[in-house]
């Protein structure tokens, strides 16, 4: 295997990527930025195009038509089926994730509209247990797919995940089968599924619904892969080429349909759904 001279850099999946305080530093240019300015631009640095992680609710607020989002299945929460304790009990960890992220689970789902097009949508959030896929996460994703199926509307899933959630053991692995089976039915019904990969998308999520989109999009500079860079290094003693497992690498190697900036995502999703779902471009009103 040979790799061309890379033009991209490797990113590590760290929560501290999320800027805090009044000022923040752009990891690409090193420039000091106003945090507020970045927030207003959906956590994207205007000058360099660097994408900081964004929370699920903040993403939904900017992605969907204003006021169109109806959250569903918020009552579906993680349990502790194995009575799992490592250095800390899983139940204690869950409370901490809820408190720190302000979220009930690693995914928020519901229905909403993108430029007037109804969609079933699930958005993952890395801040809740590293966006890991547990039973409740898998159940919410599956219900989102079933909503799309029942209402005959497209399904959109934004992924960000460290993989299957270890504390729920084999049941987490089974969520990969459950969600993929539901996507099989969606495909059979010829309803579109657009998967959007955001930084980072790895492990069990990458090996299930994240890779099953009719169209697979990714944000720039995201780390995307099955095994994380550290696992590959430790297991194989291979030296990873610079830029390995980034969105740019994967576009070049044929996995992604497009890399799309967060600030253009809403319009791009409309453009794609117009073709594969509406199969017609709505006649623009006189105003636009």
């Amino acid at each position, binding site marked *: 295997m040979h790799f061309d001279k890379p033009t991209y850099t490797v990113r590590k999946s760290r929560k501290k990527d999320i800027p805090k305080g009044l000022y923040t530093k752009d990891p690409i240019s090193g420039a000091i930025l106003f945090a507020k300015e970045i927030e207003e631009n959906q956590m994207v640095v205007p000058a360099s195009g660097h994408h900081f992680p964004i929370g699920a609710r903040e993403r939904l607020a900017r992605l969907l038509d204003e006021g169109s989002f109806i959250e569903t299945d918020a009552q579906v929460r993680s349990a502790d089926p194995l009575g799992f304790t490592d250095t800390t009990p899983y139940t204690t960890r869950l409370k901490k994730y809820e408190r720190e992220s302000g979220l009930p689970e690693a995914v928020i789902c519901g229905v909403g509209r993108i430029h007037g097009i109804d969609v079933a949508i699930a958005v993952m959030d890395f801040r809740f247990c590293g966006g890991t896929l547990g039973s409740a996460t898998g159940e919410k994703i599956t219900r989102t797919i079933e909503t799309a199926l029942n209402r005959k509307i497209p399904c959109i899933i934004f992924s960000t995940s460290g993989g299957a959630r270890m504390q729920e053991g084999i*049941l987490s*692995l089974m969520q990969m089968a*459950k969600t993929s*089976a539901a996507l099989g039915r969606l495909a059979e019904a010829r309803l579109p599924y657009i998967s959007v990969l955001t930084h980072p998308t790895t492990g069990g999520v990458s*090996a299930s619904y994240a890779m099953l989109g009719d169209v697979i999009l990714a944000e720039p500079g995201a780390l995307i892969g099955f095994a994380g860079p550290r696992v590959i290094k430790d297991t194989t003693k291979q030296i990873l080429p610079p830029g390995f497992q980034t969105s740019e690498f994967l576009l070049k190697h044929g996995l992604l349909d497009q890399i799309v900036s967060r600030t253009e995502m809403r319009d791009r999703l409309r453009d794609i759904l117009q073709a594969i779902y509406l199969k017609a471009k709505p006649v623009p009103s006189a105003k636009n």
Partner: protein
Amino acid sequence: MEMRSYVLEFEKPLRDLSKQLDTLRQQALETGANLSGEITTIEQQIHSTQHKIYTALTPWQRVQIARHPKRPYALDYVGLLCENFQELHGDRQYNDDRALIGGTAFFDGRAVMIIAHQKGRDTKEKIARNFGMPQPEGYRKALRLMKMAEKFGLPLLSFIDTPGAYPGIESEARHVSEAIAVNLREMAMLRTPSIAVIVGEGGSGGALGIGVTDRVLIFENSYYSVISPEGCAAILWKDGTAAPKAAEALKLNAATLEPLGVVDEVIAEPLGGAHYDPEQAATSLKSTLRKHLSDLCGLDLPHLLETRYQRYRKLGVYDEVGRVH
């Protein structure tokens, strides 16, 4: 029962007793002394020690048995259970993965399609088979054979035994996650009966990638886990030597998987593990497989597909307004 040459840490008391027995027998032979009393005592000790060790195995000890270098592998079972195995090679796109093999065979007089993880026995074969860790080509070959099974109406038999999919640069560059994901979806929709048997290691997504079947059977000492005990220990305990603790916490053994609905039946192994008596293990597997296969072949296709969907749909335990599902 014969002690095998590869001795696990917890089997050492047995090895020591076996050595004592050998010494006594040798003495009796050389000196002509009557040591039958001593020999009988040691034999009884061996028997009771075997019973003591093997009927109280910890989760981590079972993981070690699942990884035992003498444990029967998929092709051993295919040889013992099937006739006229015709291996079908290659994914028709890139390569032939020797860690994930497949082909047609006859089981119980019925034509079937087999897909299987395969580990190597000696160093050369271990390397050739990449220690049972498939690359994307393996999963794509398996998909090709599943589709062939569907086309010709053959039931699918899947033998699972992998530490996991190969976490390497080439594997990533050719999108192993996509290859596994597609298999999950396609197996869930496959229009032919399917049974998976976890014969050794059920290592995470690499195992599941050929494991979305109507029935999932597991040998008593096999394991099936979201992550290796070592990997889990390194991440959650920040200590690779905490693997025995992680093995226990993950509930990855056959007996603990069954109540979760992940496996449908546990197949008993000879005392000490399948490697003590592969023929006996194969006989147990044969009768269990025969039963499940005839069950499934009696179902009409829509019912089969709906039952399979619901089997996976209901997996998971979560809380919903105080109600636990």
